[in-house]
Each structure stands twice: as structure tokens, then as C-alpha cells.
């Protein structure tokens, strides 16, 4: 029931986000543009300003918010099950820190200001390099334990953060601002090619994770139980983490840091849909998408002179929510 409600709510929230923004657009114009672009009615003369704001700027941004939010929430749910840790999220395994390092390098070398898509590509490369390093190091002495993976992830994350800081202090202030805006998270300036990247990487990876729902549930019982039920523990975990890293790397490369989504959505939805992955993963995707679409709407409408940083908004909402949830669970315990 909750899943159906979320599935019904997401399109409504998305359409609402199409309609609202820092510039008020006529409802008739919005309908005309969307209908025309979707081929539902014969194209008729459209107001070019409305068409550009809606189709070039707003629609790709809203769709990106949905995919980034959905992807990060699914990753949170998966990592919490894999690590059997309720506060595991997409920041593990060095993905975010690696992405930040890649982004800083792109800015420092001047690539971000001269080559289209260089910043997200560099961030994605940094994220994937960090994850590959974590896996390689964790597996260098045989099959890695969860504990070993976590600690290696934290170490690589700290290492990448240290290099990022060293690069930042030696970077001139105007370039540092570009990095800071990216680190604070946001979707301004993103366009359809970014949507294409998200469609190609986030959606299939999230769908594949959903396919792994049963093995994920079994894994969450413990390695020995999972093995006794016929799950190839090491291989399954590796596949799940690889897919989670792919989603996180892509989402971070596109939107910068958008924290707490992977914690809030699964936590809020578990009491409603239960902990079984076949329900929790799609529910988390829908919930995370709704959360980030609304957060991005706030980011682009609350301040007239600039977009507020999306990552800061999700943290402002997420941190208090998480503290309240934590206190609640402690009281129940």
C-alpha cells in the first residue's frame, strides 16, 4: 500500500516541480510544451521563453533530482543490508571522497572551465578509482571481510580527503569557489547530457540491485546462513557493492555531495514497507526521489539571487531527522 502511494506520489511531485521554480510559468504554457515535446498533440507555436525554461533548464534538472535521490536511497538500503549496519550509507568505500578528489583535479587543471562534462567525468573517474583501490587493497590478502572492506574504505576515504585538502589550499580562490559549489551539492547548470548519463548508469544499476533483492535479504542474515541457503556470499556481495558504487559515483559526479538521502529514505520507509529488499528497494528509490526533487525545488526557489546548495538542504533536513530517529530507537531499546 505504501509502495503504491509512493509510486503515485512521485509523478505528482515531479509534475509539481515542473510547474514551480524561480520564474513563474503559465500553466497552459507548461501543458503545451510538455504535450508538444512528448508528441501528444501536434506542435503549435510555443512561447520560446517558457519552452526554454521548462524543457532546457527545469525538466532535466527535476529528472536528475529524481534519479540521483532514488539512486542514493537504494544504495543506502543495500549497504545497510550488506554491512548489517543501520547507519551505512553511500559515503562508505571512498566513493564520495574519490569523486571530490577527481572534481578538484578537474578544476585545478582548468578542465572544468574549458571542457564540457569534464567535471562530472573527472569526479566519476575519481569515485571509481577510489572504489577499485578499496577492493584491490581489501582483497590483496585473500577474500575481504566486511570489517576489512569498511576499514579500507575509511582509510582510502581519509587519504583522498587529505590529498583534496592539500590541492585546495594551493588553488586560487576563484577556482576554489567552483569546487566548493560542487562539494556543497547542486543541480544548477546541469542539462540533458547529464540526464542521459544518469539514465544509462543509475537506472539500470538500481534495477539490477532490485533483481538481487532475495540474495540481499539472505545476506543480511549473516554470511554462514547465506552460504547454507545456497548464496555465493563473496561474489554476491562484490556484485552488490560494485553496483552501489556505480550509482553513488554517477550521482555524486552529477550532483556533488547530497548527504543523508541514503539514510533517511530507507529508515523512514522500513516501518511502512518492512525490511524485505523486494519492497524496501523500490520504496527507497521512490522515497529518495521524492525527497531530492522537493529539496531541489526548495534550493532553486528559496533565494532569489542564487540557488541554495542542495547538499546542505538535505543535510539540514536529514541530520535532525536522523537524530530524532536515533533517540526514538534508543528509547524503544
Amino acid at each position, binding site marked *: 500500500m505504501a509502495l503504491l502511494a509512493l509510486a503515485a506520489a512521485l509523478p505528482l511531485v515531479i509534475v509539481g516541480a515542473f510547474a514551480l521554480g524561480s520564474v513563474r510559468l503559465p500553466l497552459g504554457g507548461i501543458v503545451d510544451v510538455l504535450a508538444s515535446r512528448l508528441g501528444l498533440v501536434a506542435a503549435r507555436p510555443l512561447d520560446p521563453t517558457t519552452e*526554454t525554461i521548462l524543457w532546457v533548464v527545469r525538466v532535466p534538472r527535476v529528472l536528475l533530482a529524481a534519479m540521483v535521490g532514488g539512486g542514493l536511497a537504494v544504495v543506502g538500503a543495500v549497504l545497510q543490508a550488506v554491512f548489517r549496519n543501520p547507519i551505512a550509507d553511500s559515503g562508505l568505500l571512498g566513493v564520495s571522497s574519490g569523486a571530490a578528489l577527481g572534481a578538484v583535479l578537474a578544476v585545478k587543471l582548468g578542465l572544468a572551465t574549458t571542457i564540457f562534462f569534464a567535471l562530472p567525468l573527472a569526479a566519476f573517474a575519481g569515485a571509481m578509482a577510489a572504489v577499485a583501490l578499496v577492493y584491490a587493497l581489501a582483497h590483496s590478502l585473500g577474500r575481504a571481510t566486511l570489517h576489512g572492506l569498511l576499514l579500507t574504505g575509511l582509510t582510502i576515504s581519509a587519504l583522498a580527503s587529505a590529498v583534496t585538502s592539500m590541492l585546495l589550499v594551493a588553488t586560487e580562490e576563484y577556482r576554489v569557489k567552483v569546487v566548493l559549489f560542487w562539494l556543497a551539492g547542486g543541480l544548477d547548470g546541469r542539462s540533458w547530457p547529464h540526464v542521459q548519463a544518469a539514465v544509462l548508469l543509475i537506472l539500470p544499476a538500481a534495477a539490477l540491485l532490485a533483481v538481487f533483492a532475495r540474495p540481499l535479504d539472505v545476506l543480511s542474515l549473516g554470511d554462514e546462513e547465506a552460504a547454507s541457503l545456497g548464496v555465493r556470499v563473496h561474489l554476491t556481495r562484490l556484485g552488490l557493492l560494485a553496483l552501489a558504487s556505480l550509482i553513488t559515483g554517477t550521482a555524486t559526479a552529477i550532483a556533488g555531495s547530497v548527504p543523508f538521502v541514503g539514510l533517511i529514505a530507507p529508515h523512514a520507509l522500513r516501518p511502512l514497507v518492512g525490511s524485505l529488499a523486494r519492497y524496501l528497494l523500490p520504496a527507497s528509490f521512490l522515497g529518495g526521489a521524492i525527497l531530492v526533487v522537493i529539496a531541489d525545488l526548495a534550493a532553486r526557489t528559496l533565494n532569489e539571487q542564487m540557488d541554495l546548495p542542495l547538499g546542505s538542504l538535505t543535510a539540514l533536513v536529514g541530520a535532525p531527522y536522523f537524530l530524532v530517529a536515533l533517540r526514538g530507537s534508543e528509547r524503544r531499546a
Partner: protein
Amino acid sequence: MRMNRRRGLLLAAGVLLASRLSAAETPPARIASLNLGADEILVELVGTDRLVMVTTFADDPEMSNIVGRVPPGIPRVTRAKMERLVELRPDLVVVSEFTEADFLHLLTTSKMKYHRVQMPSLDAVEAAITELGKAVGAEAAAGALAEEHRRRLSDLDRRLAGARRPRVLYWMEPYTAGRATVMHDILERAGAKNLAAELGITGFAPLPAERAFAADPDWIVVRKEGSARTALLAHPMLSRLAAVRDGRIVEVPGRYLSTLTHHTASTAETIARALHPDRFAP
């Protein structure tokens, strides 16, 4: 101030793509400026009638040389909001060399023309003014502004010819400006030796206080606003420098350090007058 002028091949390619205008086009009637330096130059070149957007920094007296010159009715942005920009239907958007390529792509997709102002060195200021003048159809005004800037710097060269050059440290704790920065060029034109360059520093980089102390600068240049002077006087080590003890600190107004424009000549003049008062005797 944009200090680093290291440029690679990719940036050179960017320069070639910088101006998306052809000379044959009609001058833009609606210009949106997305950086303070462009605000300042445009106000001189075209007034404010053709401006449809400027930065919020234009109203900040600690940063701007055009406070009070842009009517309040013209929208301000701290960072470009794409929807607002499209709504204003500018014929030309003026961006800086630090504007992200992904944002420029979105401008192009939204059918907006843009001009990128690039000033990698002091010598490039006049060319950048001239290029912006061409882009907005104000060639004569740009020529005059560039010529005035050139004349002021030439006047400095003439006045300071043969003067002894003190060793000067530009200090934005903990940063300094080494070789290949605009501040390096400014210090040289102001009749100084850039101490950071002597120390082998290239670009805008942190300088440990110990190295600054050991280098013993003759003069120190700081930003006037804020607490740079007070911080120097209170610094456990730098306060012992002869330059600090004797008050050989040049305080440059922030509005001369925030942008690289025709006002940059004022930066060099301010420093030169402090270092070489005898060369500016009435």
C-alpha cells in the same frame, strides 16, 4: 584578484572559443553580466541602460568600484540562476574565465550568446577591454578605456624609471602571489621586487610565516578592509619584522583587489605612491 595565469593547451583552446559573436552582428541591447569585473567594465562602456543583470557584488563597497552606479531596478545575482537568466532574454551573457564549461553548454543550449572575459595577466587587461567592447558594440569607448589604462601604467613606468626597487611581500595570510600572477605584474609595475617570486613561488600559494619572516621584506602589501594590518601587528613572528615595526605596510582598498579591470591601474598607483612618494611629489 585572479592571480594565477598558468594556462595549458586546453585553456588556449578555450580562448579560441571564448567569444561566440561575430563582428557583423548588431550590438546586444540586453546584456547580462555574471561577474563583478564585467559589471565594472560594462558600466563604463555602455552605461546601465543595456544591462539587464549584474552581480550583487556591484553594490559592495569593499569589493566594487561602481557602488551606486547600477540602478536598483536591474536584477542582481550572486550566482547565475538559469531560469531568471532565460526569462530576462539577454542578447549577450558576459561570463568570466572561471565559469564552468557545463554552464556555458547550458547557455548555448538555451540559445544565449556569451562572451568570456579573460585576463591572465596585467598586459591582457587592455586586450580584454577591447574584446568586450567589440562584443557589446562599444569599440570607441573600449578603445578609450584601454588607452587610459595604458597611459596610467606608462606614466608609472616613467615616474619610477631608475628607482630603487624595494622587496615587497603581498600578504593575504597565509597566501602570497608568486611569479605568473597578476599581482606579480602589478608589484613590478609599481616599482617593487616581488619577494614571493624571489622565494621561488609560482602562482597564488600559501607561504609559511617562518619563510616570510626569514625573507625580511622591505614592505608588505595587504588588503585595507578586514583585519590584515591588525593581524600582522598581533602576529607572534611577523610583528617583529622591521617592515611591520616601522609601519611599512601598504593597505590597498579591497575594491582594487577584487577584480581585474581598468581599475587595476589604481592598484599599481596605490602601491607605487606608498613605496616611492618622492616620485609623486607635486
